């Protein structure tokens, strides 16, 4: 990738206050995360629910207060901007929310929905009807859909309307939160193909949030795996899939159920209990579930870098048969 990144996230933390009047404390939903996204690139955030993916996306989009760190978009520091400043930024950075139907107002027609961004950000010299036609064509919906209401759309069609809204103002970056959740496999491909095609045609950068690893494999150039609000592994998608280096990534990839009843499952099983954000484990935060954990892992934080692990895995590594947790 050449040139400066379109999005640059540095040591970002998002904290939430918890507790009552006497026992106030805070938990870190995002606990210090850094990454860059370049123009024309797709970056995937992967992790279990509760790992902080959506919180991070909302922080980038200015929907969530950033308690520490910085976010730079197109050369401009945006985490310090106020409401009106952020509104300007959202012309060039759009967000697709999780629920395809729920994120569309049931009382607006498709035509109104796809042109709403123009009404919010100014319509100077635009014919909204033409814009609606242009956008619907772009996402592969017939122009007469403009008069329909969201409840008359299938999940896949609603997603396409969501995509049309996201690209309306020609953004340079789209953040898509679970763009395929709740969609059938036959429709899931359609939406991902559409996003990929638009990314190429319009030179967009994309951040895709998902817990579907198969999707990540096919659409993302680079990926990051989140655990308890931190990145445990970052890298080129193909390299990560070929040889995961963090034990958590390895376990995630090996857990992926595949539609073949005779496939031998060489799984790395983890104890199911995810630690609470209220009492983060000391040392490496993954050590309570890690089959490879050594005594140093329970006391010292792992080195920062692409793989947050004291003992990154060799390709094809298997868990030790006897667990020796100091």
């Amino acid at each position, binding site marked *: 990738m050449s040139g400066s990144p379109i999005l640059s996230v540095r040591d970002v933390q998002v904290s939430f206050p918890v507790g009552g009047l006497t026992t106030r404390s805070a938990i870190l939903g995002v606990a210090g995360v850094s990454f860059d996204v370049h123009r024309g690139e797709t970056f995937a955030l992967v992790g279990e629910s509760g790992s902080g993916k959506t919180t991070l996306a909302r922080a980038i989009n200015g929907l969530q207060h950033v308690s520490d760190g910085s976010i730079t978009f197109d050369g401009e520091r945006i985490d310090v901007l106020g409401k009106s400043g952020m509104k300007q930024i959202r012309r060039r950075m759009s967000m697709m929310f999780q629920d395809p139907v729920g994120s569309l107002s049931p009382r607006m027609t498709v035509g109104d929905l796809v042109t709403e961004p123009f009404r919010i950000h100014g319509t100077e010299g635009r014919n909204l009807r033409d814009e609606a036609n242009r956008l619907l064509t772009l996402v592969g919906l017939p122009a007469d859909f403009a008069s329909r209401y969201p409840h008359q759309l299938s999940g896949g069609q609603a997603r396409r309307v969501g995509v049309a809204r996201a690209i309306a103002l020609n953004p340079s970056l789209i953040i898509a939160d679970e763009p395929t959740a709740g969609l059938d496999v*036959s429709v899931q491909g359609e939406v991902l193909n559409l996003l990929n095609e638009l990314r190429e045609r319009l030179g967009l950068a994309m951040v895709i949030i998902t*817990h579907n690893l198969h*999707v990540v494999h096919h659409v993302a150039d680079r990926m990051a795996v989140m655990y308890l609000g931190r990145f445990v592994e970052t890298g080129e998608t193909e390299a990560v899939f070929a040889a995961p280096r963090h034990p958590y990534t390895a376990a995630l990839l090996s857990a992926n159920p*595949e539609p073949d009843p005779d496939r031998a499952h060489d799984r790395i099983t983890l104890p*199911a209990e995810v630690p609470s954000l209220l009492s983060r484990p000391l040392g490496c935060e993954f050590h309570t579930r890690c089959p490879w954990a050594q005594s140093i892992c329970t006391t010292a934080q792992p080195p920062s870098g692409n793989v947050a692990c004291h003992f990154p895995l060799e390709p094809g590594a298997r868990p030790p048969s006897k667990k020796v947790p100091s």
Partner: protein
Amino acid sequence: MSTLSISGLNVYFSTEDGPLHALKDVGFDVPERRIVGIVGESGCGKSTLINAILGLLADNGDIRSGEIVFEGMRDLTKLSARGMQDLRGLRISTVFQDPMGALNPVLSVGRQMTNIQYRSGQSHSEKVARAIEMLKLVRIPDAENALARYPHQFSGGMKQRIAIAMALMMEPALLIADEPTTALDATLEVTTIELLKDLQEKIGCSVLFISHHLGVIAELCDDVVVMYAGEVVERGTVRDVFQRPSHPYTRRLLECDPARQTQRTRVLPTIPGEIPDLRARPAGCVFAARCLDRHDGCDQHQPERSVSGGHAVRCNLVGSRQTQGEQA
């Protein structure tokens, strides 16, 4: 004997625009001690089917014909509301997609787990002991103290395991699990599947497992029923259906699963087109409009054809197809 045997089931909903034929000639068995998966996309009739079995169809729904025979003797379609109530929870129980929706947020887990044993006739301490035993079975750590805790104090995976414990508490003959792992992540999904399999063997019940996740079905189930637009288009053992898919829809569905694409690809396969309007069902094959192998014979009524013992398909290409399929 089959735990559940469904045959010729036709369900209609009356709507403003006329009757909607939601399930058409649905038939399959859930044999004793087997896990049967139902796979299909939105609108294929999975939920209608479960509701028909449980006697929970909406007021505008109507079972026009067909039988749902439970444990070889009772036809559930003819059972009174009261008779059905006696079966639900005791002989037939359910686990749903959202565990939070299944648990009462303002009652402790222990309270809920003892309350639902109201029909057992046991003393309170016996009910508590049973609740603890079930929590241990689903591997909830510190089960004794877990009883005093409230649903929000457990993680999503644990809540789903508690819901499973509650569903299996009365050792039902049939467990209906409706997308129980959809809200979970890959690692938790796998542990939940393994747990379900384990418990099914221990209790010796049958399971009807609904999912649109092909990988989960392949891993957990013995048999699979593929539904499309309210019809069973293919059924058989998991191995038969996944390795020798004989209905064009099944084949396309499997191709679409990104998990099947081991090579990284930028363009993912899809099935263009839409499910037909169930108010005006096509006379012939229900998948014909989207099928790449469509020909004149597809306009005829499609009876179920046998591919091999227990593997049946509603497609007139079956037979002439088989040799081709084996080459591929």
